[in-house]
């Protein structure tokens, strides 16, 4: 599309959907500010009480080995950070639900499509030209929001009462990449549901269902599968050499005989470690080191964006073969 | 301005800013084709002296705007007038009266009207109402046309014919 056409489409979007154009950045940036503010408050507390040195995760326990009273009260467990983490991730869903789904569904439901699609722009071009910039806007706002969430979670993760682990779902998802990726996917799925179903409320329900399926699949299938790709392999002994439990992700551990054969389970003897040493079995660990994290994040979110792209293409295609009715 | 009689009355201020001395009107209930109504109105205007040689007839776009008729209808009327030798179109300017038809003088007209008034008085005295008078006249006129009097009527088109357009173009294609 030419620059002139893009400008005109943007203007058309503004006139018809200015609420979304203003609302989406606002809806992302206001909570981002809140998270940022909380992060500032927490960091101030830490620096006032000289607790910054405590923010080092113990390799074995996962928590800090700091013992000062101020620190202990700081890290008293609370479920709030996890609740907030879930709420943070729920925001893109709401944006998709209330801004993405009605985009096309409302156009059909209100009959306005009979005006919009008898003007000088084809439905497909209108869709890409108006919805595209909106997704971009949402993605950029979501990235900033994700950055604020990430920054907040650096401190807040100490207050959940669980060990620090950079591969935990909350650490993985509360990043600019992940939140932007999910936002792009939710918008694309919202669009697809709106185009297929063409009535706002049923489309919203379909959206929730499909998005829920995507979230479930990502958690239970996609991430474990991704994490199992290209791990580093290391030999360890029973007590030493194990990769850090705070920064790495263990894919698999096994015992290997000198012949190379792997033990499927532990033998049923009284002193397992003595028996293993006697038979010269070695411990092995396949794990993802910390420097793989960024690549896996890119991969996972790249997959989300690819699925989103397919959803958008499917919407455009469906709109072309069935523009109305 | 529509009135309850189905006529479109001419407004006091001419819509075309006085380009033409006359303005057309429509008699919707008459059953006479629109273009013929316009032709007759021009004819009448010529006879009564409202239109003279060189006057411009209403522009097509003015007629379409005020009366909401298809421009083809107006064009058809003007073509008919051209065929009769009454008007001629000047491209880009308009349609103008070229010559007043060969009509009876005003004195003759006055005499004819007097005779007609006398007949009307007779009919009224015999108890005939307005509708009856119209019916009598219509029948007499039709019989006059059909009975070969057509050749004697001035200004009739060479193709002849009666009141019904269909009769004129029996079975022909449009």
């Amino acid at each position: 599309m030419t620059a002139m056409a893009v400008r005109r489409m943007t203007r058309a979007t503004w006139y018809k959907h200015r609420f979304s154009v203003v609302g989406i950045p606002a809806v992302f940036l206001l909570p981002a500010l809140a998270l940022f503010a909380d992060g500032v408050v927490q960091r101030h507390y830490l620096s006032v009480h000289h607790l910054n040195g405590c923010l080092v995760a113990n390799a074995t326990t996962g928590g800090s080995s700091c013992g000062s009273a101020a620190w202990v009260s700081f890290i008293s467990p609370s479920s709030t950070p996890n609740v907030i983490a879930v709420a943070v991730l729920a925001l893109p869903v709401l944006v998709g639900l209330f801004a993405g789904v009605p985009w096309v569904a409302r156009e059909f439901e209100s009959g306005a499509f009979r005006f919009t699609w008898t003007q000088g722009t084809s439905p497909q071009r209108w869709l890409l030209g108006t919805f595209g910039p909106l997704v971009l806007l949402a993605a950029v706002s979501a990235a900033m929001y994700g950055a604020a969430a990430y920054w907040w979670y650096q401190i807040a993760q100490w207050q959940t009462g669980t060990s620090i682990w950079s591969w935990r779902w909350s650490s993985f998802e509360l990043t600019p990449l992940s939140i932007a990726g999910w936002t792009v996917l939710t918008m694309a799925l919202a669009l697809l549901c709106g185009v297929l179903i063409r009535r706002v409320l049923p489309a919203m329900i379909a959206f929730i269902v499909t998005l829920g399926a995507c979230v479930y699949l990502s958690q239970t299938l996609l991430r474990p599968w991704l994490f199992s790709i290209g791990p580093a392999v290391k030999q360890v002994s029973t007590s030493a050499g194990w990769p850090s439990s705070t920064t790495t992700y263990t894919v698999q551990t096994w015992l290997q005989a000198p012949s190379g054969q792997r033990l499927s389970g532990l033998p049923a003897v009284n002193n397992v470690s003595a028996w293993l040493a006697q038979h010269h079995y070695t411990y092995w660990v396949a794990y993802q080191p910390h420097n793989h994290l960024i690549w896996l994040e890119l991969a996972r979110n790249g997959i989300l964006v690819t699925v989103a792209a397919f959803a958008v293409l499917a919407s455009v295609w469906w709109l072309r073969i069935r523009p109305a009715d | 301005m529509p009135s309850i009689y189905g006529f479109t009355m001419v407004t006091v201020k001419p819509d075309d800013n006085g380009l033409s001395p006359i303005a057309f009107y429509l008699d919707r209930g008459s059953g006479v084709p629109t273009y013929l109504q316009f032709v007759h109105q021009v004819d009448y205007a010529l006879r009564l002296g409202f239109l003279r040689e060189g006057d411009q007839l209403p522009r097509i776009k003015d007629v379409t705007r005020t009366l909401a008729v298809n421009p083809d209808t107006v064009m058809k009327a003007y073509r008919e007038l051209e065929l009769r030798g009454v008007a001629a179109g000047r491209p880009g300017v308009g349609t103008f009266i070229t010559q007043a038809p060969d009509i009876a003088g005003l004195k003759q007209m006055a005499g004819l009207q007097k005779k007609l008034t006398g007949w009307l008085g007779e009919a009224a005295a015999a108890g005939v109402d307005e509708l009856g008078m119209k019916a009598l006249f219509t029948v007499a006129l039709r019989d006059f046309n059909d009975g070969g009097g057509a050749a004697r009527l001035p200004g009739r088109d060479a193709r002849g014919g009666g009141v019904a357009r269909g009769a004129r173009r029996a079975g022909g294609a449009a």
Partner: protein
Amino acid sequence: MNAIETRGLGKRYRRTWAVRDCDLTVPAGQVTALAGPNGAGKTTLLRILAGLATPTTGTATVLGAAPGSPQARATVSAMDQTVPLYRHLRVAGQLAAARALNDQWDADLAVERLSALGMATSARVGKLSGGQQAQLALTMALARRPRLLLLDEPLASLDPLARQDVLGWLMTCVAEDGLSVVFSSHVIAELERVASYLVVLSAGRIQVAATVDGLLDTHLALTGPADGVDDLYDQVEIVTAQRAGRQALVLARTGAAPPGWAGRPVTMEELVLGYLREPAARVAGEPGVEIVR
């Protein structure tokens, strides 16, 4: 180039055919009246031509281009029966949105027309009356400077004065710009002065598709004795005959009244109603073609 060409056009919704076997050739520069009872398929036909519905069978072209294609979008304007607008915007915003969606847009025409109608640009579109909304939609359709205008019952919500005014405006556009117009209306008497081409749809099929002049020249309304109707069938082509006591009113396709019958020219309303009463009667193309029963 023809304004509209359809070949075997059909559209099915679930089980029923809204429009079927439509063969239409409407030349450019005509004002076409689309008449027919409710549910005859007028709206479906107009939507297909506007690119808002895809036909199940057959093809359609508007001004030589496929409906919905870029060429069609540039030259064809449509106004749907539902008067679609962005009801939450103000008039100024609606015009601006329309301008953004179109390559060619005559802003002066729109502004002039709306101020002549006395429509404030700050009014909210949803709060306008039905007639005002129709006027707004029509103004926008014409501001696109189309060569073909497809209007689905554009006069339905207008008062008589507004109807006259709108028709006058449309006819002036036809006179000045050579605009082709297709519009459906229930008020057939109004179409008479305005239409040069008539299409009658009945139960999804085309009954009549011919020029108005041709139709009016080749049809007569005959009045005569009711018991003479049966004989009349051998003498002329009858479209429909109505008996009322001792008198009969017959719509016939003939040039002259047969002996014993009085003939007068038909009005378009009588023509349309006559054909609608006889679903089997058809006039295809120009008169001069047989009435098919």
